[in-house]
């Protein structure tokens, strides 16, 4: 079976203030179709950089990334992308935002209206279709982004700290909703987070990055079942064991970053 995302020999450096800064070095990773993978690491480790390279926002200068067998070169329209920042367009209503990708994919008229209503129902936003994002709470805006992301059914979802700005309880609710959707559709998901507990709660594999330059330090396979209860998994012994191992890998990297 070919990988959904095949990353090989990726290296990325920036030139800033007359110095070359190495952001990522020798990254190799295969992500299987339908797999849910989380990236964790200290801030500045290049995990978001890697995600932006998979999305085609940043050019890949050394190494290669294949997505569904296609070499990523320029904006990757076969993925869905969700950011920590609100990226729903504030000047469009909830409905218009969810309808936008459908419009780009040639879904028109009644089919589009129906699909938008279905998506709003799926994320629990029925009745808010005509509201503008500024009229909604932070959690509701995240659900609009989720509805928009899922509306056109991309096979791969890239999520860059999507729930980072939410409070702890709301975060759990969003994780639960995301897992339910993933269990039904089994998209490939790459989920960047700095929250170790969140990574173990949602993912099947957790990839730990070293501090800059980012390299893969450890990959932990989470032994929890795919069908899991986000509210209860944290009390299971497997969770605790995974957390301890990942923390042992991550802590020195964070300390190293703080000392530098």
């Amino acid at each position, binding site marked *: 079976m070919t990988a959904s995302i095949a990353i090989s020999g990726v290296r990325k450096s920036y030139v800033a203030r007359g110095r070359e800064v190495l952001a990522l070095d020798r990254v190799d990773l295969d992500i299987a179709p339908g797999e849910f993978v989380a990236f964790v690491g200290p801030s500045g480790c290049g995990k978001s950089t890697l995600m932006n390279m998979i999305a085609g926002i940043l050019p890949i200068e050394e190494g290669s990334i294949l997505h569904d067998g296609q070499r990523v070169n320029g904006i990757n329209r076969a993925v869905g992308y969700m950011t920590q920042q609100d990226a729903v367009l504030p000047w469009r209503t909830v409905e218009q935002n969810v309808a936008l990708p459908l419009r780009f994919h040639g879904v028109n008229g009644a089919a589009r209206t129906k699909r938008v209503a279905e998506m709003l129902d799926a994320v629990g936003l029925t009745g808010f279709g005509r*509201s503008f994002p500024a009229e909604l*709470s932070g959690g509701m805006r995240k659900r609009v982004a989720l509805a928009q992301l899922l509306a056109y059914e991309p096979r791969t979802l890239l999520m860059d700290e999507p729930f980072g700005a939410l409070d702890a309880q709301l975060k759990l609710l969003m994780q639960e909703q995301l897992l339910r959707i993933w269990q039904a559709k089994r998209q490939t998901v790459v989920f960047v987070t700095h929250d170790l507990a969140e990574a173990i709660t949602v993912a099947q594999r957790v990839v730990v990055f070293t501090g800059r330059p980012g390299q893969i330090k450890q990959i932990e396979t989470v032994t929890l079942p795919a069908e899991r209860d986000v509210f209860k998994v944290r009390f299971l012994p497997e969770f605790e064991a995974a957390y301890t191992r990942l923390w042992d890998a991550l802590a020195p990297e964070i300390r190293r970053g703080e000392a530098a």
Partner: protein
Amino acid sequence: MSGAADEAAAIGGPVRTARVEAAEAAAGQRKLWIIVLRVLVGVGFLALWHHASGNWIDTMLISSPEAVGLRLWRWLIDGTLWNHLSITLYATAWGFGIGCIVGFSLGLLFGRYTLIAEVFDPYITAIYSIPKIALAPLFIIWFGIGIESKVAVSAAIVFFVIFLNTYSGVREVNPIYVHVTRIMGGGEADVLRHVIVPSAASWVITGLKVSVPYALVGTVIGEFMSSNRGIGFLINQATGLFNTTSVYAGIIVLAFVGAVINAALKHIEAYVLRWRG
């Protein structure tokens, strides 16, 4: 930020409690008071003017509110007002329209293609520093003393305001919106239509509001220099005859027109930027 409280606030209670009624009544009362006070300020000013005229200051210099009012009324009745106002409005509208379209298009172009912006930057800055009024005599040579030269002056002034505002607006667009829109399948035209233009809209509208009085200034300056019709001509002619009553009447017409156009733009702004919540 607490999620649950936030959601409740966003949803809003369906019940109109006594507290809601009281808050709305207080807000209504305040609005009424403001209107009353505004009228009082206006009446006070007229009374002061009336009293000053002849008592403190020579009527020759400041005329009097009743004389100016009478003059305006006569102009309205005998068609003088419309005859001159129409030509001023016509020139202003054309100047405003041309300045806006050209300024907006070039602002988009420069905002999207930084190379062009960097190459032209020193020239734009140089031209921008010229007081556009200084171009008025040149425009009269080029376009004659007809309406075209007035259109040119106001277009030149409006162009820069709209151009610079559009340019800044486009530069300010959050790149995340552009990336996400492209990833979900949008092409360049879609990005322009759904992201760049709406995002720059608040800057453009600010530019429009600022440039309406400028457009009027441009036209009137052109009319001052050489013309045979228009409110600027009327004021200029009256000044030559030391007819201060007509000068004030002309100025009041211009102030009124500016206020009406600005009020209209405020409504447009409220609609276009309604998403700001």
